[in-house]
């Protein structure tokens, strides 16, 4: 597997730990992507795919883990086709997956506005927005499918915003020049998720989907090199069971919670994809994380998670900090001349509307200079005084009323009178399990969809594209490609007593036992916070070799301390949230190490990944295409032992890489 690992293959002088001493493996090639004109590829792939006779579909069982936009849509669609689906979610109901919290909207190349939008333009914007680190074939397919998603969701009864003529309304979003974002007030994710959930519920009630809520996947079962099932724990009874199938689909979302503080749900976690990674699925671009610029800053050490506010606020709000460091006056007491509207100053062309990564980094820079505001100096002002003066308070309220209300509820400050304070926060992870064009991982029979995979967004995701990708994968892409896999690989049932099944079950129960029996003195949360702070400091908005090397030295020590000092009260036979948490933190402690290594090895700046060593003379991010125009897919070799890097070279036939510039 791990090919040649001679010293010549090592990058940089990063000898801090053995872990950084990774080997370079065989390049990865996406064998499923058809060639030919990009606009024909998806059509061709679907036609070339083998099909399963409708009468035989009932004989195939597919496991789907997760019930968010991708998982919910996939479970419902596969069941509609006639497959037997066994589905899992850790929440008490499939309706609660964190897709529900997405606010802004969903992109689709409908061109209802007659403003020059097209599938090709959405494709172009997404490849460029991803800073040329995604695959053209995948992105084009995403743009094609986007139009079908809107049709599907409208037919399901998703209450999108409409105009008085009864037709769908759209708005523009983050740095795009057309109005292609469909929305349902500030709750688009909720409405789309409920649509998928309702479709799924119909299949559950009809008996086609066997739903296991409050059940968490803890390992993947691989038999004869193919994914054939999972080990899952019933969170209420504590029972650990194996579930077997012909294919396994992971729709378990991103891993932003590695940072402890993020806009992810408290229980979102990386365990499913990390367990799959340990079982042979390569992990791609783990360092590509998205930091959202407009979140409510933390109020103190008690903070358990961060809350995002729609970036539409930047349309009318002006971002500033005091010119002088350590200026502790109230914002109203700082005269105009002593304010620094730093985005408008640095990026006159785009001003407050620069892309997410740039706005986030600029905020970090001014805070690092000691000019941040609010508790701990970790915040910048987002000021609506000018907008209120220009448009009137009523107009501002009509546009942003619900966001202002949310801000006031959380901070007890009135944003109509004093400027809001905002700070960037971890929001989305572009990295994830490596998948081919069919969304299949490097473990045959194991598929990853939605945020759980790495594809489509490259190094930076555009606003309103996450919902689009999750639903594209779930409703349209996976149901087509999974057919092909099942048709080509008729499976004999796996006996319950198969050694691989036994081994996976044993691994899980041993680990749970270890967590429960350890007589330590620290809580899972205390480790999680410590890990999160370390990652935020060293592998957050700006990264450098020294910091990443330091993190790579610290993480194994923290992991060792975790297993020595962890204390989990209660038993494994009942609902035990400390146990769930501890198990997730244990996986985060391994994933964090890979993230830092990936960030260290990618010595360029691209999208959300900013390496301080790689910047232009003007201090902007500098991509280095000659060296890094590839997907970094990491192969697991053991906890704490150096992984193997497989590169998938990216080629651009239609959208030619250029350096982004917003000044």
């Amino acid at each position, binding site marked *: 597997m791990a090919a040649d690992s001679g010293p010549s293959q090592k990058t940089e002088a990063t000898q801090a730990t053995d872990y950084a001493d990774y080997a370079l493996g065989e390049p990865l090639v996406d064998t499923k992507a058809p060639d030919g004109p990009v606009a024909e590829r998806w059509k061709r792939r679907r036609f070339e795919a083998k099909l399963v006779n409708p009468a035989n579909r009932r004989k195939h069982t597919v496991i789907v883990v997760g019930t968010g936009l991708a998982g919910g849509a996939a479970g419902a669609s596969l069941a509609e086709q006639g497959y037997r689906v066994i589905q899992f979610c850790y929440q008490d109901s499939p309706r609660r997956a964190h897709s529900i919290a997405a606010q802004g909207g969903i992109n689709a190349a409908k061109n209802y506005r007659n403003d020059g939008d097209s599938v090709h333009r959405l494709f172009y914007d997404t490849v460029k927005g991803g800073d040329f680190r995604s695959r053209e074939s995948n992105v084009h397919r995403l743009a094609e499918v986007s139009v079908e998603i809107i049709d599907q969701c409208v037919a399901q009864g998703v209450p999108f915003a409409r105009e008085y003529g009864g037709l769908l309304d759209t708005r523009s979003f983050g740095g795009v020049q057309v109005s292609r974002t469909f929305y349902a007030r500030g709750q688009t994710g909720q409405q789309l998720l409920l649509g998928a959930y309702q*479709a799924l519920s119909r299949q559950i009630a009809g008996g086609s989907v066997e739903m296991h809520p409050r059940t968490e996947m803890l390992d993947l079962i691989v038999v004869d090199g193919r994914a054939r099932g999972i080990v899952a724990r019933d969170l209420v009874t504590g029972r650990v069971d194996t579930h077997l199938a012909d294919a396994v689909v992971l729709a378990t979302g991103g891993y932003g919670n590695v940072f402890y503080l993020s806009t992810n749900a408290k229980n979102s976690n990386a365990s499913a994809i990390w367990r799959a990674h340990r079982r042979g699925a390569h992990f791609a671009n783990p360092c590509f994380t998205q930091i959202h610029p407009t979140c409510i800053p933390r109020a103190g050490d008690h903070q358990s998670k961060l809350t995002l506010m729609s970036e539409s606020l930047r349309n009318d709000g002006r971002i500033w900090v005091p010119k002088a460091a350590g200026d502790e006056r109230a914002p109203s007491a700082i005269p105009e001349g002593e304010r620094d509207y730093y985005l408008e100053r640095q990026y006159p062309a785009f001003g407050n509307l620069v892309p997410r990564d740039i706005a986030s980094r600029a905020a970090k820079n001014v805070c690092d200079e000691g000019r941040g505001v609010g508790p701990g100096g970790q915040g910048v002002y987002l000021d609506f005084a000018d907008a209120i003066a220009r448009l009137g308070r009523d107009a501002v309220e009509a546009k942003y009323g619900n966001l202002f209300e949310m801000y006031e509820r959380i901070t007890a400050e009135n944003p109509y009178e004093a400027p809001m304070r905002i700070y960037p926060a971890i929001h989305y992870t572009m990295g994830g399990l490596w998948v081919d064009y069919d969304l299949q991982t490097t473990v045959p029979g194991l598929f990853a969809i939605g945020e759980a995979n790495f594809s489509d967004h490259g190094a930076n995701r555009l606003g309103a594209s996450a919902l689009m990708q999750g639903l594209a994968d779930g409703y349209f892409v996976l149901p087509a490609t999974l057919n092909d896999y099942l048709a080509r690989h008729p499976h004999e049932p796996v006996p319950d007593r198969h050694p691989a099944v036994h081994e996976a079950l044993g691994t899980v129960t041993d680990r749970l036992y270890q967590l429960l029996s350890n007589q330590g003195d620290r809580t899972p949360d205390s480790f999680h916070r410590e890990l999160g702070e370390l990652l935020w400091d060293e592998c957050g908005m700006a990264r450098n070799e020294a910091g990443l090397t330091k993190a790579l030295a610290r993480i194994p020590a923290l992991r060792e301390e975790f297993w020595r000092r962890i204390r989990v009260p209660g038993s494994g036979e009942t609902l*035990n949230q400390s146990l769930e948490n501890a198990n997730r933190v244990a996986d985060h402690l391994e994933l964090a190490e890979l993230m830092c290594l990936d960030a260290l090895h990618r010595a360029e700046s691209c999208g959300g990944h900013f390496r301080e060593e790689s910047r232009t003379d003007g201090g902007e991010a500098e991509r280095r295409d000659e060296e890094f125009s590839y997907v970094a897919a990491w192969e697991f070799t053991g906890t704490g032992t150096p992984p193997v890097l497989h590169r998938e070279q990216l080629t651009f036939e239609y959208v030619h890489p250029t350096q982004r510039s917003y000044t």
Partner: protein
Amino acid sequence: MNLHLRVWRQQGPDADGAMAAYDVSGISPDMSFLEMLDTLNEELAGRGEEPVAFDHDCREGICGACGMVINGQAHGPERTTACQLHMRHFADGDTIDVEPWRAAAFPVVKDLVVDRSAFDRIIGSGGYVSVPTGSAPEAHATPVPKAAADTAFENAECIGCGACVAACPNGSAMLFTSAKVVHLNSLPQGAPEREERVLSMVGQMDAEGFGGCTNTGECATACPKGIPLPSIAAMNREYLRAVRKGR
């Protein structure tokens, strides 16, 4: 601030439970109610005691996972979810009672965690539009009058938290059920299954053991998303219409 908590502790579905008293100190007014419970739980876990189990996830007031009765009110004194309730609404030295949702159809799983799967079965009985993936017509084929779209949205906002059931003296799920019936029945896309939907969903709601509606209005008062009481009237209207139409 320092607070006296009395929290319902119950080891499992069949175990007996009781209110247990805890004192917490150093609570910041900026904490959410759940962060206050986190503080208690870290303390308990530090002492090797089992933390208080409670459902929570997004902590942004949208997933509907959290839910507890705080001083006799579902989600506490503010009209929002427990995760968006901040401690500044309490005073130093307060005694706060925290109990799980109480309803026969929501059996307690542990401590403050209850089983709300009855809601999923109500949705499964008809809270959908039967439109298999790929079979949808072009989105603009059927314009939807803005008023209908707005009514649909207002009702679609329901987060399924169960506060309506918890607040209702009869443990009734009428507000929850009506929100989905009204959402889908107001739209042309939901029209073909209009009668079938309301009959099945009301049937399932009754079968789950929820109580009937006595129009006390407690549900709408407790609803963090402001689903209005007239939605129940609208569902009644749909139901009686379906009965009259003989379907």
